[in-house]
Every structure is written in C-alpha cells, then in structure tokens.
C-alpha cells in the first residue's frame, strides 16, 4: 500500500512536471507576442523591448523555463503580466468560488444522474428507459454555453426564480451548478444504469427475489449499495471534466472562479495566469485520480492496490 502510494506520488509529480513543460513550451511557441499585448498599440519599440527585458522574456526558452520551475518550487507562480498581481493571490481569491461550484455541480450530477440511472435500470427496455437514455445523451452532448444561456433565459429572465448570473447567495449557485451538473448527470446516468443492471443480474439478487423480498427492498437495500460504489469512485476522475467545464460555465454566469480567470487570461495572453491555472487544474486532476484510486479498495473490496 505504502509502496503503491509512493510510486503514484512520484508518477504524479512527473505528470505535473510534464504538464508544466508542455504548457510552457506551447505558450512560448505562440506566434503572438505577450509583450505587445502588455504594451498596447501606442508603445514605442524601446518601451516594448524594455518591458520584454524586465519580464525576462528576451531569455532563451531553457533559461525562462528554469526560472519558472525554480520559483514554482518555492511556491511562487509569478506575477500576472496584465493584472499586475501575484498569480497565487489571484488564484487563491477565486478558488473558493470554483470549489463551491464544484460541490454544487457534483451534488446536481450525482442526484440527477443516479436517479435517472436507477430508474432506467429498473425499467430496463421500456419506453422510460429509452427516453431517459436519450435525455442523458442530450445532457452529455449539449454545449454548456447553450445549456447555461437556456437555463438563464427560462429560470432567471422569464420565471425570475433565480438571479441573472452573479455570485453571493445559494440562489446564485443553482443555475451554474445545474448547467455543470446536466453534463455530468448524463455520464452518471449511463454508468449507474449499467452498474445497476450488472448487480441486478447477480445471484444474490435472484436469491433475494426468490426469498420473496419486496421489489423496493431488493433495489434499495441489496442492489443499490453495490451498484453505486463504482459510480461514486468516479467522482475523483470527474474533476477533469469539471475543470474543462468551469471555463465556459463561469463565463456565462459571471461566476468569479478560476475558469473565468483562465478564459480572460487566454484572451490577453497573460502567460503567468494561464500557466498557474493550468498547473492548479492539473494538480486537482492528478489529486482527484490519486484519491479515487486510493479510496477505491476501501469502497470496493474486489479492487486491490499493488
């Protein structure tokens, strides 16, 4: 167990290093010049060169990357070119909003997804099953930008149940969580359905049925706990999908999280922020996977860590 964990941690560090190198190289290779972006259209060539020198962007790639890496090890993500603030400060100030959205989104997708999957599995082969699966397919494939605007229009503008974007109260949280959750719910519904169908085929379920147990007791007491475990273990892996989604959803809803920060930084080629958010996201994904894998054997004794 400890050997496994040690190996995984080393692997994770290597993955993060790789991510940092690839992102840094991609940003370095951009045909766009970040200094021009900072300097604006009126800057003289001297001003542009002066800024380039002070930011160390006139150095060769290896030197720039080495500088970045060494300050990263001391916990310094650098200073934003455009915002002129510490990247760590910017990310930390926005992290709570993203985490809150993550909790809301996971709650939505788990509740909606598991319910849909459960019903579909139990009603397997019926029209209910088919329509639920079509719905989950739509949920998985609908662009979040569209889903978000649609929910905003119906529930905020037309019905006025929720505020039109923004951040602050639980009412602000509902629509963005739902937008994120609809995508995840589709996945969870499909997974839950197949997992449940597997379990319902097991001998012990047949035995329970043969004993004359009530259908609801079989489903909820015997089948569900076993079917739900592998699905729950997916939440850790889900963080990756989530990190991709927040960029869009946070922008649509004016949600002040790191997704919105990343989106604005990309538009303005604010390299330190792009690097910072990428690394933090990569860290979250790696950590999520690690947790999911570590916790899995506790949830499902059939899995063994080696």
């Amino acid at each position, binding site marked *: 167990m400890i050997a496994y964990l040690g190996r995984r941690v080393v692997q994770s560090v290597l993955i993060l290093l790789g991510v940092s190198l690839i992102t840094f190289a991609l940003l370095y290779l951009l045909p766009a010049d970040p200094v021009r*972006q900072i300097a604006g*259209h009126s800057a003289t060539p001297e001003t542009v060169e*002066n800024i380039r020198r*002070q930011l160390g962007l006139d150095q060769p790639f290896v030197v720039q990357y080495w500088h970045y890496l060494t300050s990263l090890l001391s916990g310094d993500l650098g200073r934003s070119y455009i915002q002129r603030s510490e990247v760590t400060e910017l990310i930390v100030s926005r992290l709570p909003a993203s985490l809150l959205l993550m909790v809301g989104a996971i709650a939505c997708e788990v509740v909606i997804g598991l319910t849909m999957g459960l019903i579909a599995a139990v009603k397997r082969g019926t029209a209910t099953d088919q329509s639920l699966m079509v719905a989950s397919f739509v949920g998985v494939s609908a662009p979040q930008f569209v889903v978000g605007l649609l929910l905003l229009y119906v529930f905020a503008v037309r019905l006025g149940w929720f505020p039109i*974007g923004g951040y602050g109260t639980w009412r602000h949280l509902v629509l963005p969580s739902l937008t994120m959750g609809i995508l995840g719910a589709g996945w969870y519904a499909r997974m839950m359905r197949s997992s449940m169908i597997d379990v319902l085929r097991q001998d012990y379920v047949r035995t329970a049925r043969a004993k004359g147990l009530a259908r609801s007791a079989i489903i909820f007491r015997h089948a569900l706990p076993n079917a739900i475990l592998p699905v729950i273990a997916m939440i850790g892996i889900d963080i990756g999908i989530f990190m991709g989604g927040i960029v869009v959803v946070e922008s649509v809803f004016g949600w002040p999280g790191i997704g919105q920060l990343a989106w604005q930084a990309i538009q303005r080629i604010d390299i330190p922020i792009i690097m910072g958010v990428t690394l933090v996201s990569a860290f979250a994904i790696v950590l999520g996977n690690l947790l999911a894998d570590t916790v899995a054997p506790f949830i499902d004794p059939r899995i063994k860590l080696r």
Partner: protein
Amino acid sequence: MKTKKTREREHDMRKYLISTVAASVLALVLGMTSVRAEDAVDPNAKQGGAITITYKDDVATLDPAIGYDWQNWSMIKSLFDGLMDYEPGTTNLRPDLAESYEIAPDGKTFTFKLRHGVKFHNGREMTADDVKYSLDRVTNPKTQSPGAGFFGSIKGYDDVAAGKAESLAGITVVDPYTIKFELTRPDATFLHVMAINFSHVVPKEEVEKYGTDFGKHPVGTGAFKLAEWTLGQRVVFERNPDYWHKGLPHLDKITFEIGQEPIVALLRLQKGEIDVPGDGIPPAKFQEVMADPEQKARVVEGGQLHTGYITMNTTMAPFDNVKVRQAVNMAINKDRIVQLINNRAVPANQPLPPSMPGYDKEFKGYPYDVAKAKALLAEAGHPGGFDTQLFAMNTDPNPRIAQAIQQDLAAVGIKASIQSLAQANVIAAGGDKAGAPMIWSGGMAWIADFPDPSNFYGPILGCAGAVPGGWNWSWYCNKELDTKAAEADSIVDPAKAGERAKMWSEIYGKIMEDAPWAPVFNEQRFTMKSARMGGADNLYVDPVHIPINYDNVYVTDVQ
C-alpha cells in the same frame, strides 16, 4: 535635443496667456461648439444615487501609468486628474488641474499654473512636485508603462528611458503652483499628452507605500475614490466629497460588476438590475434591441475615433503598384459591408474618422466602380487579376466582412484566400514585412489615444511604424509626408490650429493618392442605459471617457 539658439530664445520669448476665453476661440476656430469649462455642470443634474455598470473582463489595474484597457481607461479618469482634460462629451481641450497655461512662441516651453487647494484622496494638497514625480515615474523604465513613449518630446526623456537618469531634465518646479516643461521640439500634441491618463497625477507617498500594488490601491485627486475592490467580482467607487470641481460628481456611488457576459448584461438591463452594460449591445442582439421602440429609446449613438481599413503591403508585389491599390479601393462595396454589420458604422473614404479635427468633409475618395477598378488592374498589367491572401481576425463579424471583401475582390478578378486567425497572430503577420499582403483591420483597428489628427499617422502610416513588430501593416513609408507631418506638429500656436488641421488634411489626402489603405468604415458607438440615467446624450458616447463619462452623468430617481 536642445540647441544653444533655443536657449537664447527662451530668455526673451514673449509669452502669452491662454485663458478660457482664448480656448473657446480656439474651439471656434476648429469649428466646434464650446462650453465654458468652469460652469460645465448640468443645472438639471440631481445629486446622489448609485448606479451599476457591468464589464466582461476583469479590471487589470487602476494605476494611471499602466492601465490601458477598455474598462479601466475611464475608471482611471474618474479617480485621477491631469493638467488638462476635455469638456465633457467633446474633444475640446481645457485646463483641469492646471488653472491656465502659457506656451512660448517657439512651441517648446509650456508653463502651467496649478489650481490651489486640490487634495488627494488621502487629504494632502497636490502641488507641482507631484506632477513632476508622476511624469518621472511614468517614463521610468521600471514602471513598465505602455504610455512612456507619449512623453518622448520632453527634454531628458531619452536619458530616463535609457535608465541613465531618474528625473526628466525638461521639467522644472518653479514654485508649488507652477511647473515648466521644456521640449526638444515644438509639439502641437503636447496639451493632449497632458490630458492622457498616463500623465495623471499620483501622490508619491502612496505609490511608495503600496509599491507595485498601487494599481490595486489607487489614490488620486479625482471625482471618485475607490471604496471596495473584490478581485474578479466588483469594484466600487464612492463620491469624493472634497473634489475640487464643485458640484461634481453627481453620483454617490458606482458599482462595477465584473465578469458579466455582454448578453447576460443586456438581460439584466432589461430587468432593470443594472444601468449601463459597459461592453455595449452584443452584435447578435443589436437588431432586436433597435426594433423595440422602448429599448431603442435608451440607446445613444455617437461617433468614435475609429477607422476600419484594409491594408495593402506596399512592399509586396503586386501591391507595390499604386494602380493595384487604387483598384482595390474602387472594388470594395463599403455600403454593403456597413449593412452587414447592421449599420453600426458609416462608410469611410479617408483614414481620419469624421469626429477628428482635420477630417476633410469635401474629400470624395475612391468611388465604388468595378469597371474602373478592372481598367486600373489591366493598366497595372493584371488584366486577369491575381491571387493573394487576406488576413482577418477570427471573431465575428470579421470573417463575414472578410468574405464580403473577398467577393468584391473576386468581382474584379482578384482571388483572395482568407486567413482567419486569432488577433495576436494577425498582428504578428502585419508586423512582419513579408507576412501579409492584405489585412482587414477589424477587431484590431486603430482607435485614437487622443483626438488629434497626428495620432492616426506616426505608428500606422508613418515611416516610424513601418518596422518589424510595428503597426504600419502597409509598410508605407513616404519620407516627404513624414517631413510634412513633423512640420504640422510644430505648429503649436493655438491660433493656427486651423492651419495645422488643414495641413493634416492634405497629408491624409496625399496618403489616399498613394492608397496604402482602403478605408472601409468608421464604427459608431451605441451605448445603452437604464431609463433612470440622466445627463446629455454626449456624456454616454464621450469620445474620451469611454464608454461613458462617470463624473457628469446622474440618475433622475433621487430626491
């Protein structure tokens, strides 16, 4: 560079005072209406109330030496002041922190008398030392100001820019209320430079206290003070009760909500939750808004200092032939392109936008004439046209406009393939001499930093901009016009402003003969506001305070 002769002349020069009256005369000469600066407070304005404004992008910094964004430009103007400013809603210069100014006849020495009793938000009185400090700071390479180059005409600039001096030799504090600027050349744009954000006055003690974070803790002399800044969420301004300009500002509080998509902002405006969507009406919703009389009534339309154009690389065949460039000018159906963007612009025939001094109303430009364009191409030795590339930015409506241009060009035989790229990539291609034969400037086009005709020349049409990484994407360099431009900019005497504007008209007329650009349209601005917002319409399309003039607008629903 200061010559001995200049120095001698400085001693016996006859100075003359520009009073507000003279400034009004100047404005009349330029054909503009003028309001007396001091009394420019709307008598109908109501005091108090709070408004909410939304922006999509985060506010980067509120440091006047650094801020250069759509959203922070006008915010900084409300927190800080400069020696000069413009009458609200116009392009007419007037003294601001300065009470009056004198210009030496040689146009190289400017002396400003400062207003007494102007206080920074921290309570300290602003003096000439602060003005000097602020300009030393903005030109210091360590500040990394994108605007440092604007101060290039001040004596000693080169030494400060090179890091050889800490202070501009050309600025002298005569007494706490008098400051003198010596320039290396006569500079007719200098008063504009003294009005631009980068020259706004900051208190040394606060800058030193916060260091690089001054932009997050701005302290100025302006109409508003920063009350709250929650990163990524909101910026709140509150009224500065000690503002030197009595009667201003009208509003008690402005809340800027950050991170709101324009389309969401419009929905919130329709619900009455916000007062001004700072990023304007989203193009996809424009027709819907304009078709609804109730909404249309709350839209204010105005010009802006913007021109959208096609550049032709004059160093690349076949665009090195003036006839080919003229043919392109005649091939473009500008009216159709304007229709394509829902008439949010007016067709252009010259580089300068109509609201800019020096714009030539009589100039006819190149007509839309397919037959003549074909004839010119034949004369140039391309009767069957040729193949080329048109670069354009990849965000709407630019690809659509590029396609319209492509069709127009095809009609005269020019087969242009469209290179639709991210903004930064198009800019990079334009700054590379062999990079792009043609560029549609949309999304990157020049918006003037200050309302002066020279601002459309140097970097985008002059030889100085025709360098790698420059903005002169036509690589057009006419030494004769460069000399003429320098000559025009040495006419500092405000009484000769008309003459100077005329010289600039001639320069742009000559440029159009050489046709390095095909000007396409001048974008109009459409600002939408809530029903409760009051104040003259031109405050909502202020050419300088973009998008709106926060200091002078008010709300009508306060008691």
